[in-house]
């Protein structure tokens, strides 16, 4: 479990103009949740993410990862192995010239035995569906494939929590789908997922959506609860997915049509409950 208590973070606290990024975050993320964090640029999303594996330390307040305080240097290694991070640009986190060596980099540094290392790399590559590419140079892969290799490198360390900071932002629609499917599989196996995104339809994939605004939590609920509040989201510089807007409009016409829908599939399903007008059948 991750526990964030009254977390404040200020960049350049000693400078003439310190920049406060987080101002009193309280958050409890139980194991196995799929949390999506949204918020406008500069709302503190990435700063918060970097606190979850001690890349940043609190200016005030505490962050606990499985009861380990991120401020306590003796836990640093354990925390980094518990919470794995994937960033926006896959090229920045690929280090080796061969895919499987890249994936082995993290677990190798954990000092694992050869056999164990081999198993973990194989397992991680299989989990992201990249086994066939194990001998390839990473720079020859597509962006989506590179990002999957980056995820494999993190998962090979067997973290119980995966943090994705806009990991799909640079990808094409197929690459995004690949990553979302991969992440969902890990989630189903019990991995806690914390994903930051600007894409509202990706936010609908989570079990919980947290909205940050100016360094504080502005909304926290299921995707349906959060996306049901279009006006509030717009005030916060966000939006609802187009399909949610459509449902809202249709609900105004016909109150028995659900007001908040978050996926294309359920929207089609709901529409099919209504009879077609005369003479319009295919």
């Amino acid at each position, binding site marked *: 479990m991750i526990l964030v208590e009254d977390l404040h973070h200020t960049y350049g606290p000693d400078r003439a103009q310190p920049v406060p990024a987080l101002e009193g975050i309280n958050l409890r993320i139980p194991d196995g949740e799929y949390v999506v964090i949204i918020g406008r640029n500069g709302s503190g999303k990435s700063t918060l993410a970097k606190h979850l594996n001690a890349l940043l330390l609190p200016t005030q307040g505490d962050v606990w990862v499985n009861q380990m305080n991120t401020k306590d240097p003796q836990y640093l290694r354990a925390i980094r192995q518990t919470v794995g991070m994937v960033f926006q640009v896959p090229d920045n986190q690929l280090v080796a010239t061969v895919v499987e060596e890249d994936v082995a980099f993290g677990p190798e540094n954990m000092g694992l035995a050869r056999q164990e290392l081999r198993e973990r790399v194989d397992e991680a590559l299989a989990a992201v569906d990249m086994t066939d590419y194990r001998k390839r140079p990473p720079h020859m892969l597509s962006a989506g494939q590179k990002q999957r290799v980056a995820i494999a490198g993190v998962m090979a360390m067997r973290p119980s929590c995966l943090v994705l900071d806009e990991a799909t932002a640079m990808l094409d629609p197929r690459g995004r789908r690949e990553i979302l499917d991969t992440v969902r599989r890990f989630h189903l196996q019990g991995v806690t997922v914390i994903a930051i995104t*600007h894409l*509202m339809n990706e936010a609908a994939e989570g079990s919980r959506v947290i909205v940050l605004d100016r360094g504080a939590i502005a909304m926290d609920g299921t995707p349906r609860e959060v996306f049901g509040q279009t006006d509030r989201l717009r005030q916060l510089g966000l939006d609802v997915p187009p399909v949610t*807007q459509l449902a809202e409009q*249709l609900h105004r016409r016909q109150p028995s049509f659900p007001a908040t829908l978050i996926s294309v599939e359920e929207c089609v399903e709901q*529409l099919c409950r209504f009879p*077609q007008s005369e003479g319009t059948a*295919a």
Partner: protein
Amino acid sequence: MSSVIQVEDLHHTYLPGTPFEAVSLRGVNMRVDEGEIVAIIGPTGSGKSTMIQHLNALIRPQKGRVIVLGRDVSEESLDLKWLRSRVGMVFQSPEQQLFEQYVGDDIAFGPRNLGLDRSQVRQRVRQAMETVGLDFEGFKDRLTFSLSGGEMRKVAIAGVLALQPQILVFDEPTSGLDPETAREFLARIREWHSRQRLSIILVSHDMEAVALLADRIYVIAEGRSVREGTPREIFSQCDLLRGCGLDIPQIAQVMYGLRNRGWAVRLDVLSVFEAEEELGRRIDFARPLAEQSCEPVQPVR
């Protein structure tokens, strides 16, 4: 209408004749008319970036022709300074290209290199900043590294606009921006376009943005232009786009899902408003809900 860009049968291979040889373009054709907004969509690795780098001669054609504003970019005598001030390139995440300490200096870099005098440079910087929505007095002396991501992107775009190009090329203009900032940006692009008769090329994975802005779309896959048409024509071809690793706007996906269930709905629906209208025509909201659902068909992604 005269065309400002013509790309004919363009081919490009990276590192030809080496073991790392990689074919990027295998015959791309494209035309952009004056004052048009043309979108280029294609999966990662399809050659979009290679293609647009030809438009200001960062790459010269190996085979085929690229004509920009009447000049063949293969010409040895081509004035590169002229070309690059006419074709403004805004690459992906342009905020990463800021290098000056102060905002004003960063934006002034291009105009200074054009050999303009101090007051002209200042005038251009002021204009460009106002165009992107940065207050000249308030921002010119700010430190570039102290800005937010959205502000940095504005500075980077102002640096391109300060060259006063006739053609603007945007590579993923909205990636990494929050929805409001993205919307604001798209609205601004539309505004510059209508005010200055700019021709705009938009490379994007954001199908909603493309549907909103583009007059025409080129679909590029595996180094070839495979389709050309209006957003309505292109986005009603869901299978084709998905086959190339792309997608259609979410609203069009709803229509496609209904069509798969045997409904005779239009597929060329691009906005929530249009979808509501179309569904209002097709669905009898007055009659009670059907007990039995439609035949279950393959779920649609």
